[in-house]
């Protein structure tokens, strides 16, 4: 795409949409930075896993989707939740194990969803949400909805059998799902070189008879434009596809991990390509969003995170007397 065409497209998306994407990213960044601090202050029970540096992916892609679409986020996808309408208050409730939270304290940290938003709550088993999403999309389509799905998955999780089975199953049944691989170079401490031998994970697409694309996962603007196109394509002609997003995990696997195994140069390289700053600068430069709007947005996000945290803090934990409730759904 020529620079001019790209610029025109960015303009066509419109200020409100870009602000929404910026909002998801900023909110997530600020919320996660807060969680990081809380963790190191010993105020979080369990672990903290962030998507710092990877915010563009969830924000840009969910914003390209529609009301009935379905999503299975992974541990680094707070922007998928926020992009689909989750409130940051629920995020803190979840982390603090509040009775008021999305899992009412039954599950922790990143293990939440909101079906109102079309977002599944993940289980930890890597790869296991992929077939779930495929089935969910199949069901909604059978019921007459024009649903498309996006399954987020790490580079490491592509080595699971579930990844393979789900992609193949979706391909055979022409289920419109984007399997979006966030290649952040590491799976816990394990680098790509110990995880797979292909150059790009998108190369796996051919083996499923589907299309595979690569994208810059730190470029929210480009990613949003691309995803709009892909989603429209999948709606027009339902089919599965692979999308590999290049990015880097900017912190440890979790906050207990100092990630000293990641070469410093790599971190520095990606620090220069921070997705929030990059999008901010581009949107300003192309004149779609004025600086004041962004400044204002950032202030609002800060306040929202602050408010959410304090509200969650004051909400009640689950009542132990409810421990046994709801193992089964009532007929």
């Amino acid at each position: 795409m020529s620079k001019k065409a790209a610029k025109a497209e960015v303009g066509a998306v419109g200020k409100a949409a870009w602000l929404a994407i910026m909002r998801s990213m900023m909110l997530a960044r600020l919320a996660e930075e807060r969680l990081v601090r809380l963790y190191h202050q010993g105020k979080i029970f369990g672990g903290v896993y962030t998507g710092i540096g990877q915010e563009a992916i969830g924000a840009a892609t969910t914003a390209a989707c529609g009301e009935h679409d379905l999503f299975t986020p992974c541990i680094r996808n707070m922007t998928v939740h926020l992009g689909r309408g989750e409130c940051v208050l629920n995020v803190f409730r979840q982390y603090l194990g509040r009775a008021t939270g999305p899992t009412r304290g039954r599950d922790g940290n990143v293990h939440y969803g909101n079906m109102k938003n079309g977002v599944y709550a993940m289980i930890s088993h890597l790869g296991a949400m992929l077939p779930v999403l495929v089935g969910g999309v199949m069901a909604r389509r059978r019921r007459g909805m024009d649903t498309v799905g996006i399954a987020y998955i790490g580079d490491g999780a592509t080595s699971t059998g579930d990844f393979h089975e789900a992609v193949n199953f979706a391909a055979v049944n022409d289920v419109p799902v984007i399997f979006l691989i966030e290649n952040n170079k590491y799976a816990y401490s394990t680098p790509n070189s110990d995880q797979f031998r292909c150059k790009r994970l998108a190369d796996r697409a051919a083996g499923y008879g589907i299309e595979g694309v690569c994208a810059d996962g730190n470029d929210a603007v480009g990613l949003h434009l691309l995803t709009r196109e892909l989603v429209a394509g999948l709606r027009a002609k339902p089919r599965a596809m692979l999308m590999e997003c290049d990015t880097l995990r900017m912190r440890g696997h979790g906050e207990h991990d100092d990630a000293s195994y990641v070469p410093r140069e790599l971190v520095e390289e990606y620090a220069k390509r921070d997705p929030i700053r990059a999008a901010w600068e581009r949107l300003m430069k192309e004149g779609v969003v004025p600086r004041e709007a962004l400044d204002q947005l950032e202030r609002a996000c800060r306040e929202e995170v602050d408010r959410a945290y304090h509200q969650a803090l004051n909400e009640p934990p689950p009542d132990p007397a409810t421990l046994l409730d709801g193992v089964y759904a009532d007929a």
Partner: protein
Amino acid sequence: MPEITYLEGIRLGLQRLMRERPEVVLYGEDVGAFGGAFKVTLGLQEEFGKDRVFDTPISESAILGSAVGMATQGLRPVVELQFVDFGMTAVHHLLNNAATTHYRTGIPVPMTVRAPCGGGFGGGPFHSEELESLFCLMPGLKVVYPAFPSDARGLIYSSVMDPNPVVFLENKYLYRHVKEIVPQSFEPVPLGAARVCRAGRDAVVLTYGAMVHEALRAAEQLASDGGYEVMVVDLRTLKPYDADTVLTAVAATNRVLIAHEGWRTNGFGAELSALVADRAFHLLDAPVRRVAAPDVPVPFAPELENAYRPNADKIATALLELMEY
């Protein structure tokens, strides 16, 4: 009134469900035009179309995982494992995905996993397993195991209509070996309710699946040989199981034998025995005994499999021992 096999019972239950409930879909390996390895679903694709009855790649994880996804979006998927043994490649979808979803998120998961089990036909170690106790460990799952054609029909109906994930175990030996004359129309058989198949006051056999028939034979034998009246209780649902019926039976007989086709150590019989040892200790006149398969892989050769598999004789012998305690 027609006479149906166990296998036909399941098929008739599925057929009625699919006629009444557009949200029921059925899939798995070779279940479509071919009708499945055991032909349980024969004719269903023809009647209901490829949209509702379809074949899948050989991908147990994709099958079970997608069923979780469908069940949370308004469908009632019924999936078939070609053999329960092969479900072991994707246990995490049952234990972690299907079984925990309602507890974690409040979203019901009305899916049914049909799984042919058991031996007796030279299937060898990988086509004959009985794995109910493994499923019974999983909080949030229901586990159903019919022994009669009428129950097969009525229980599959209730399993599919249940808002929870159900593992519906089918005994391959019973598929064509048991027949029953049944009315054309039927009431669903409720989950969680055991059935006293035979009355008796001298002892009770707690059992399910293929061993129900062996226990009934053993009870006949004891009645004619020794004049003992042995009660036989068919659990029918293993999780959650019907503790009341079990405890009432124990109270009425004071002697308990547990019989199942699967392995002894940590088999489901252990749970039943533990229930009795805890809640009916004061009612017991004799030890609680188990007749189960020994802890060895299911052997192929008939000479070995016959020695391996529990049957009426082994149950009768154990019962006599209990009587004489």
